[in-house]
């Protein structure tokens, strides 16, 4: 990816905001994320409306900020709201979901105030997404080259010829062997690792400022995953792109991300720099999750409360983790904890965080 292409890639909106700085969110900068935010999600609430039932709150009061070049790991189990957050940031919340409240700023611009047409100009150019199941993401009937090139054609207004040249450059950048031939390949002719690299190429061709990876490397074999992660980090660092890396695997988070957010039942329960988090998680749930990776039954039992309740949580006053928490106290049932700062850059949503 060349400098010139980056220039082509940058939208007017984006450029204007870089010049002005980011006054809208300047006052709210927490210690965890000084500096202008590329993505600033504030108090985001998303609910799913299923006919004949109480709406399910998929995201509660989620605030997430990413500085330029930062890789933030969003870690949680299935159903915690990881994908919903990714989709909400891209402004494509799957039906029957609805954004109830909150704002999402990209380079200081409120995405909620943009029209669908303006949004689709941003998507794929400034905001990109890499998804799991890479073979499903590719249109099975079209060759790889045109599929990648179309994105550059649509967003950067380049010709098909130039688009294919750029696609070829991208295939080289994501270390695909024999790139000229791969341009003419169909998706079914690629291995999973190869298809994942193609999707990365599609996401990065316009030189986005922000990339979301939704569980994108979990399906890959370990040696391939290691290669793809190295490649992703290199590309992201070169372009100073920010990245939200969604995963269930805290092993990947520990080795790939700058900062870690733990999400539980649609709430961010802990936010910490990677080193700090992995030298001792603060929230009891984070510890429980960490213990699941320890492969030590005794340690796990130390952090295991009872099973989660299957029903949705109407009682606002409770801590959402109270029913499973080994450190539960009276206050946890009476007062919903706020995400508060424990030390510089470390936040936890717990009345009684683990101190070490």
């Amino acid at each position: 990816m060349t400098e010139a292409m980056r220039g082509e890639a940058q939208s007017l909106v984006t450029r204007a905001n870089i010049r002005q700085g980011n006054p809208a969110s300047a006052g709210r900068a927490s210690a965890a994320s000084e500096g202008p935010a590329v993505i600033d999600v504030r108090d985001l609430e998303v609910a799913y409306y299923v006919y004949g039932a109480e709406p399910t709150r998929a995201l509660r009061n989620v605030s997430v900020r990413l500085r330029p070049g930062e890789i933030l790991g969003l870690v949680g189990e299935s159903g915690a709201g990881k994908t919903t957050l990714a989709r909400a940031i891209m402004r494509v919340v799957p039906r029957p979901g609805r954004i109830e409240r909150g704002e999402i700023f990209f380079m200081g611009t409120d995405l909620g105030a943009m029209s669908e047409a303006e949004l689709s100009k941003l998507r794929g150019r400034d905001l990109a997404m890499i998804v799991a199941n890479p073979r499903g993401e590719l249109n099975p009937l079209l060759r790889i080259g045109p599929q990648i090139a179309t994105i550059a054609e649509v967003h950067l207004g380049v010709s098909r010829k130039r688009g294919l040249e750029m696609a070829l450059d991208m295939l080289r950048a994501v270390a695909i062997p024999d790139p000229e031939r791969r341009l003419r390949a169909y998706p079914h002719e690629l291995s999973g690792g190869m298809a994942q690299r193609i999707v990365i190429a599609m996401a990065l061709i316009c030189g986005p400022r922000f990339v979301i990876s939704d569980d994108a490397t979990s399906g890959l074999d370990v040696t391939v995953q290691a290669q793809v992660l190295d490649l992703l980090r290199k590309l992201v660092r070169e372009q100073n792109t920010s990245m939200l890396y969604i995963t269930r695997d805290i092993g990947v988070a520990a080795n790939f991300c700058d900062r870690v957010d733990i999400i539980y039942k649609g709430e961010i329960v802990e936010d910490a720099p990677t080193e700090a988090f992995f030298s001792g998680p603060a929230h009891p749930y984070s510890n429980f999750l960490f213990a699941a990776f320890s492969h030590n039954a005794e340690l796990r039992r130390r952090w295991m409360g009872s099973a989660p309740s299957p029903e949705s949580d109407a009682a606002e006053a409770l801590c959402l983790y109270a029913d499973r928490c080994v450190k539960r106290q009276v206050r946890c049932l009476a007062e919903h904890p706020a995400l508060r700062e424990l030390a510089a850059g470390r936040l936890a949503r717990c009345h009684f965080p683990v101190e070490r």
Partner: protein
Amino acid sequence: MAPVLEVSGLVKHFPVEGSHAVVQAVNGVSFTIAAGETVALVGESGSGKTTIGRCVLGLVPPTAGSIRFRGRDMGRRWNVRSPALRGKMQLVFQEPGESLDPRMPIGRSIAEPLRLGSLDRAARERRVQEVVQRVNLPLDILDQYPTELSAGQQQRVAIARAIVTDPELLVLDEPTSALDPTARAEIIELLMRIQRELGTAYLFISHDLSTVHQVSHRIIVLYLGRVLEEGASRAVFRTPRHPYSVGLLSAVLLPSPGLRRETTFVLEGEIPSPINMPPGCPLATRCPFRIDRCSTAFPDAERIGPQHVVHCFRHEEVAAREHATDTFEEFQRIAQRILAARGDRPESELAGIPALPPHRQADRVEDDTER
């Protein structure tokens, strides 16, 4: 004592439709499993581990080689469902939701393997209740349907169904890969407890090396349908001698920043296609230790420890370059240090911990290790 399972010279080739090519999924694999032992087949996709599992189960006929179960040749006529096996071999697959009939209540699903046996209805019901309790599920689950359960619970049901005939061998094909980390940990602990209590042998097929490290006594490292290295789990994890084993172990990302097996080389590229493979070592295309011989002959087994066997011409050089270190154990020590402290307040302050309101009390899943 004769091993529970004896696989020798197993070969499985699949024809490629519409051509004369064959997929060489398994190319001469031999191993044994003793009673109460866990042997793990590890390797990446395309390594042939799942095909081996299916051959052992008799679900696909081997192209060559033999599979002896409890001292008897399985031949080609038997499979895991044959009445002659009397349920002594059972299986658990990756996707619990798919292996359970969505229209069948859990109780009937679990009782299914018993239909081959001689138990009467009452005895069958007793047996089902027994295994349900053994896998720590509440009895009222028997009348529920698979979709009402979480993935972790579904996998417990699948395990209950597998052990209901009191098998001597369980073939576990990626039993935890589809689960969330916390559910995965529970299932692994459950499987280990069942083995302790019942002495069941496991053929554990997985690509998740952390899990394999925890559960298996011996491991077999596979690549393109060939055994590259096998040995006691501790030995292989601590002192891997095949370049591929080293590459595999050093690619694992453990939940501690920077904790990764140090190595002097990396494996480039991806696993090649298993169609019409050239002779020689299957890793030859990716291996930094490659010499001319590697592309003409597959190295014989070399015994380098009591149970430790490697197929590599240059394993001594690998040994000379690699440190003996088990990063998984190292991580466990780190985790122990971190998680030992819970930061609880003194006992006196905890007196007032309230019970949860009744509607929020979930069906408690008991801890598996305590039983």
